[in-house]
């Protein structure tokens, strides 16, 4: 026990600066003799000798900063048996504080020269991942240099904040390889920022919006409404922001809500999944996960709630020029039909028997993937041009396949399109997912013998299947809608 480590001179101080040595190397000192004055973030503190003996080495000169629990001086090892309280304490702190105090320097570990003058190395495989708590010397990665595959160990213990690169990437020698979460190591001589204890400091940057993914509920406090009105609105599924208040300062009264209801104020309810059995009754059955599970829940909900009617017809697309973008034409037809007959571009709340018609068309596109069914939404599709729509459709396809589609693009569809015919199938009964009330399915294009001016002719036709929720729309509205779709599809351009 010959090294005296700098003790914590305050409460949770990360380090101290050497102000002045009172002794010199080679001096023989008595226990409690003042060794050095050290300046902390808070005060100048005299540090006494923990024991008697000859000082053989200083670990710093005036102006140097010594980190807490790091060596300050070394005694000649004339009495190794003498326990040194300060040293012992320091060690305890360093080991117990696996959480906040352990490491202090080198937040970023730079790739060292793994051979002799090697310019770079390729990452073969990571042995750790971001967020891992690792020990000193634990292998971080195997790196392939021009000469060999080398295991790179961790320079110290700590939590990994960031890995610079993935397998196959080449890292230049001296460039960052791994970043650690800095704990307890506030930048040198900076304010500790507390009067007690030790506040963990990190430069890790949080990538998260202030509101999280979505504030599920908009605080009612922004809208002035009397409590009774708010209760009624909640029960009727009315969004109070759509109600005009007639009370003082524009506050909403019960009558205002009733009036709004009378005007066909519509309910908005985010669909709530139903419980599914925890333990499968089929031996060996795997519980569904993720998107596939969501699909199952949604479909069950639809089956329980919706009163579906499916209508089938064909559109004759003989007039289309060669190279027409089929998807874009179908989307255009849906937008056209929504304008002609708005009843199907809507949400319906069965519990409250309330519906809401939309001016804008937020079109959900059913996209199949290995994981399950996704329905990304093109918002306000009527105001996008063909190029933008095509770009969005393409992006959705890619993002669905590599599972990078953001959650917020998977909700809010006011009507849905399923182009199942890409694979096979002429007609279907597409399933509506509440709260939307209609879905249009397009089957496989085919050639059909049709009468043309009294003679048989062969035209290409597109089979259409539309399902609507008969609670929310009438048969007349649905057939008018389908007619509008066909009319638009049958145009040449």
């Amino acid at each position, binding site marked *: 026990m010959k090294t005296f480590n700098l003790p914590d001179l305050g409460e949770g101080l990360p380090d101290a600066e050497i102000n002045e040595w009172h002794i010199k190397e080679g001096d023989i000192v008595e226990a409690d003799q003042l060794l050095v004055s050290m300046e902390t973030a808070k005060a100048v503190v005299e540090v006494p000798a923990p024991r008697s003996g000859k000082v053989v080495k200083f670990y710093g000169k005036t102006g140097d900063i010594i980190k807490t629990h790091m060596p300050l001086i070394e005694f000649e090892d004339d009495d190794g048996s003498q326990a040194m309280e300060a040293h012992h304490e320091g060690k305890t702190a360093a080991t117990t504080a696996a959480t906040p105090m352990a490491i202090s320097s080198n937040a970023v570990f730079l790739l060292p020269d793994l051979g002799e003058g090697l310019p770079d190395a390729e990452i073969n495989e990571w042995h750790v991942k971001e967020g891992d708590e690792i020990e000193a010397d634990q292998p971080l990665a195997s790196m392939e240099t021009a000469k060999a595959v080398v295991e790179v160990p961790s320079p110290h213990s700590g939590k990994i904040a960031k890995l610079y690169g993935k397998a196959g990437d080449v890292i230049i020698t001296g460039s960052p390889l791994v970043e650690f979460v800095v704990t307890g190591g506030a930048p040198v001589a900076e304010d500790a920022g507390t009067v007690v204890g030790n506040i963990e400091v990190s430069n890790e940057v949080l990538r998260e919006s202030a509101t999280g993914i979505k504030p599920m509920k908009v605080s*009612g406090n922004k809208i002035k409404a009397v*409590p009774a009105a708010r209760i009624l609105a*909640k029960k009727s599924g009315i969004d109070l922001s759509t109600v005009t208040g007639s009370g003082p300062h524009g506050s909403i009264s019960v009558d205002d809500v009733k009036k709004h209801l009378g005007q066909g104020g519509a309910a908005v309810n985010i669909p709530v999944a139903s419980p599914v059995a925890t333990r499968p009754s089929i031996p060996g059955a795997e519980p569904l996960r993720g998107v596939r599970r969501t699909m199952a829940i949604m479909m069950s909900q639809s089956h329980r709630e919706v009163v579906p009617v499916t209508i089938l017809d064909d559109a004759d697309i003989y007039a289309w020029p060669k190279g027409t973008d089929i998807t874009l034409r179908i989307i255009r037809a849906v937008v056209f039909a929504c304008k002609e007959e708005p009843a199907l571009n809507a949400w319906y709340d069965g519990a409250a028997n309330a519906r809401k018609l939309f001016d804008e068309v937020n079109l959900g596109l059913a996209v199949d993937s290995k994981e399950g069914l996704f329905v990304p939404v093109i918002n306000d599709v009527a105001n996008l041009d063909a190029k933008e729509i095509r770009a969005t459709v393409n992006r959705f396809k890619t993002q669905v396949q590599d599972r990078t589609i953001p959650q917020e693009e998977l909700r809010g569809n006011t009507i849905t399109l399923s182009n199942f015919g890409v694979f096979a199938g002429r007609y279907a009964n597409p399933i509506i997912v509440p709260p939307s009330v209609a879905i249009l399915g397009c089957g496989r294009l085919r050639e059909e013998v049709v009468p043309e001016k009294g003679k048989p002719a062969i035209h290409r036709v597109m089979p259409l299947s539309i399902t609507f929720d008969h609670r929310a729309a009438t048969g007349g509205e649905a057939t008018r809608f389908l007619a509008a779709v066909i009319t638009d599809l049958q145009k040449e351009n």
Partner: protein
Amino acid sequence: MSEVIKSTVAEFNITYTQFLDESGKPSQDLPSIAKDFDKLIKLYRFMVFLRAFDTKAINLQRTGKLGTYAAILGQEAVGTVIGELMQKEDILAPAYREYGIQLQRGMKIQDILNFWGGDERGNNFANPHDFSMCVPIASQCLHAAGAAKAVQIRKEKRVVVAVCGDGATSEGDFYEAMNVAGTWKLPLVFIVCNNQWAISVPRHVQSAAGTLAQKAIAAGIPSEQVDGNDVIAMHEVVEQALDRARNGDGPYVIEAITYRLHDHTTADDATRYRSQEEVDQAWQREPIKRIHNYLVANNKWNDDLETKLQEEMKAHVAEELEGYFNMPKPKATDMFEHMYETLPDALLEQYEIVSQG
């Protein structure tokens, strides 16, 4: 060994002011207010009104028409004078026995009775900034300090008056408020209405301090004692303290010596802890008779006027009772209406339970 020399680093003295003795005779040369008979008659009339109201309120409680009520019998002069001297824009932070001030600052008899009659609407009286009655003892002193700080920050010429009892001077809030008022030099006047009893605990058990006024010395603010049953002395001392504070010269503490002639509240029985003899003696010092005698001695008052006044005040009180008796019970949902400016969604369900009766 020689005697240790200790030098005096601080000394204090506390004065006591009285102009009219128990019988209403001058005990020293009188100030100019003593010749302003119009004002003295106005104050006298108000004190008679207060006593008529107080007597009625006790009777209402005794007949089941009011909840617990804290009487002001014998303390009328203190509130009457403070209410007279405070400006409209000043701010009052009262305890719960300050009707004499409050009735001159927008509160009505109906409000006071509503408060003691179990109805929060009593605190919604016609003064936009005065604090409402404060039951937890001395905590209003800190509200007064905060209000005075607000006045100071805005550089307004307003004074805040905190009124508390002798018992309240034992609370930390009282000391803390005086301390901060001293160090921030707040426009704040503390008036300790020392009625000698905190329920059953007499003044000398409350504190070993010779006066309560001297507690201000520790906070570095000036203070004095005054005969709180002497309208003229009260007027002199309170006026000076208010002017001082209004002119930016800082806080002041006044200990007004008076006596609680009635029980602590209508639920209390003071005969359990104090003698009839003590109360009888205190009746000799009560404030209304004193100023009455002074006015009569100066030929400004007589029996005819007195009889008329008594009738007038009883009628006045009776008239104001109508409002209280006609006050409908609050709606049950009123519990929720002012919990927050806008009731949080989380409370709607409970609101609905109540609204459905």
